[in-house]
């Protein structure tokens, strides 16, 4: 059952390479996505008991992130069908005007499926080494996705993404090895036996291992100051890829850190992790909020907002208690909102062919549905109530305010600065006056339905949390927050 979840997209990806007919390939993509969601839902409901020490198993944390990843992948694949069908072979670059062609479609679809397979592997693995292999595989699978538009800027972004992330993940490998070493020569990286022998581990190596894993997977997760690669990768890759990158991949990287935090908690040393997590959280939020103020390009703006929200996650888990529950909820809701926003950004890019926010005005008249979604998404991102992010950020604040007010005040200050920066430039795009004489464009369903559904789901989570989901998030919070 578990292996099936990983193998399905893997095999589909390899098959996609072979298929020449576009329609058949699209069918394969959609079919796999639907089947994957079905399997994950079935697994989440039935929760098959995994044997002790098994390499692939489902626990609350894994299920939560896997659910988000597969739902997101379904939405993105539905969007991708429309996107690929309309994407011309040869097109001119909006910024610098040279001609460039795209990556051949089969490789793009194959890499998408491999990307899903690797992310599934990460969420399911109960072995830290296997987890590392999964995360490295996500990097390798997503590199060609970022390089979809064959032109020098996305090439440079891909190179940076590959090098920075690989170095980061290699550091994480070093961390994993240190953790294994902490259990003495016979140490293994299986999560279950690490948890079992946790009190006996050599404390100093375990802590050094956690810190290296935190920096390593933190690079992949986009925590500041290791976030350098994120704005370029998101800015240059097609919007549906950045949706997957921001929505699903960053969560998986965070999962890596949480797994090691589980080991620390089992060793009775969970307080050790609180300090660095809160520090990285606040640093990311502060740096991202300030950089957002001067960002002229809306896709890079969303990327920096991802850095900030990863900071919120790290801060929430660091504070622990109720805030951990808020952080887990925030991971889910942020992924949904950010993915929807990236898809809508893709629509706006399609309509206005420029990424500079100052050049986009009056979207309300040109692409009304996307403009409405864009405004709703921006407000949702900034924590306006009916949407889920307000709820999660308030829960995190509630946890933080129980201790002392200074970190909570900083938390709110950075959110405020980011809100001012984002709303100052993003809202006039939709509500602004003259549309520069652009005619009203037809917006296909495939471009509007996915972001609409994702935002609707985020809105639902803001107003009504279904009971099973609450249990799931509580379980995940207990595992992650050093309960």
């Amino acid at each position, binding site marked *: 059952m578990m292996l099936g979840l990983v193998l399905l997209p893997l095999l589909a990806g390899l098959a996609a390479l072979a298929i020449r007919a576009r329609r058949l390939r699209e069918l394969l993509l959609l079919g796999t996505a639907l089947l994957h969601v079905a399997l994950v839902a079935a697994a989440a409901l039935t929760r098959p008991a995994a044997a002790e020490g098994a390499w692939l198993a489902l626990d609350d944390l894994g299920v939560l992130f896997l659910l988000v990843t597969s739902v997101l992948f379904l939405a993105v694949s539905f969007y991708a069908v429309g996107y690929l069908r309309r994407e011309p072979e040869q097109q001119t670059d909006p910024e610098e005007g040279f001609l460039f062609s795209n990556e051949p479609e089969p490789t793009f679809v194959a890499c998408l499926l491999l990307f899903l397979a690797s992310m599934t592997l990460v969420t399911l693995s109960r072995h830290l*080494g296997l987890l*590392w292999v999964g995360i490295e595989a996500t990097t390798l699978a997503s590199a060609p996705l970022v390089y979809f538009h064959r032109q*020098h*800027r996305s090439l440079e972004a891909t*190179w940076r993404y*590959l*090098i920075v992330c690989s170095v980061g993940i290699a550091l994480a490998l070093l961390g994993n090895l240190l953790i294994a070493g902490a259990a003495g020569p016979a140490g*293994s990286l299986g999560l279950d036996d690490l948890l079992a022998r946790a009190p006996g581990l050599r404390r100093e190596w375990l802590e050094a291992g956690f810190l290296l894993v935190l920096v390593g997977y933190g690079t992949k997760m986009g925590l500041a100051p290791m976030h350098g690669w994120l704005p370029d990768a998101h*800015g240059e890759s097609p919007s549906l890829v950045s949706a997957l990158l921001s929505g699903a991949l960053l969560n998986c990287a965070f999962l890596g850190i949480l797994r090691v935090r589980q080991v620390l908690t089992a060793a009775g040393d969970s307080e050790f992790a609180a300090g660095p997590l809160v520090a990285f959280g606040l640093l990311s939020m502060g740096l991202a909020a300030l950089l957002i103020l001067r960002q002229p390009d809306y896709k890079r703006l969303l990327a920096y907002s991802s850095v900030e929200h990863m900071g919120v996650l790290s801060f929430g888990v660091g504070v622990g208690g109720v805030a951990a529950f808020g952080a887990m909820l925030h991971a889910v809701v942020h992924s949904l909102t950010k993915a929807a926003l990236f898809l809508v950004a893709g629509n706006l890019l399609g309509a206005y062919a420029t990424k500079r926010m100052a050049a986009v005005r009056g979207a309300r008249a040109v692409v009304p549905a996307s403009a409405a979604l864009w405004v709703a998404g921006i407000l949702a991102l900034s924590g306006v109530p009916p949407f889920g992010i307000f709820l999660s950020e308030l829960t995190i604040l509630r946890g933080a305010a129980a201790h002392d007010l200074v970190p909570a005040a900083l938390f709110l200050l950075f959110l405020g600065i980011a809100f001012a*920066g984002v709303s100052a430039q993003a809202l006039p795009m939709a509500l602004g006056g003259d549309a520069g004489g652009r005619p009203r464009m037809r917006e296909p369903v495939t471009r509007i339905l996915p972001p609409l559904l994702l935002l609707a789901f985020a809105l639902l989570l803001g107003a009504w949390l279904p009971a099973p989901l609450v249990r799931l998030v509580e379980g995940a919070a207990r595992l992650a927050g050093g309960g």
Partner: protein
Amino acid sequence: MSALALLALTVVVLVNFRLLGGSRMVPIIRGGALQGVLLAGVAFALRFEHVGAESAALAILTAAIKGFLLPGLLLRALRQVEIRREVEPFVGYNLSLLFGALALGAGVLVSQRFAPGEGVQPLLASVGVFTLLTGLFLVVTRRKAITQALGYLVFENGIYAIGLCVAPEQPLLVELGILLDVLVAVFVMGIIIFHIQRDFSHIDVDALETPSERPREAGA
């Protein structure tokens, strides 16, 4: 620790200095390959005594991949690029050697500090840390994409060495997975180097006209 392994480790240290000092590409790639093979040999020696055949066999496979497959890939990319020398890297070669010495000192210091458990040679740990720092240094300071890929490879070797002395035997699958990832990573880097060359006729990572250096309009 057999004398052979000791010899291998000293050669690794020498290769590190060669990598830091050299400017021509081909010897650097060959040096990286040699380093991979030597470390795999040490792994083979270590494991053969303790654990058993099949993990030792794995070490041979690693040697094969790191010694011949990856360098061959990089050399093939190099031939298409017709670039032979690393021109004015960010940090001069002499300074790099100085850094090498410092890194070696740091390696020894770290291995003492962490007081490795019994049966782990402090020399292996310090060589591992030194190789790791050399790899990082190469990635950070060299301009050419190929040298950065090689830097990543050396960095990988360093971690492999530390992994050896910290957690000697790993389940087969994980070892294979790590190896596979490194292989694919370098393979993808090779492809991208090819594309960089095709578009730019140079492989200076720094001069790829980075997006964020474009003339910035006035702030928000």
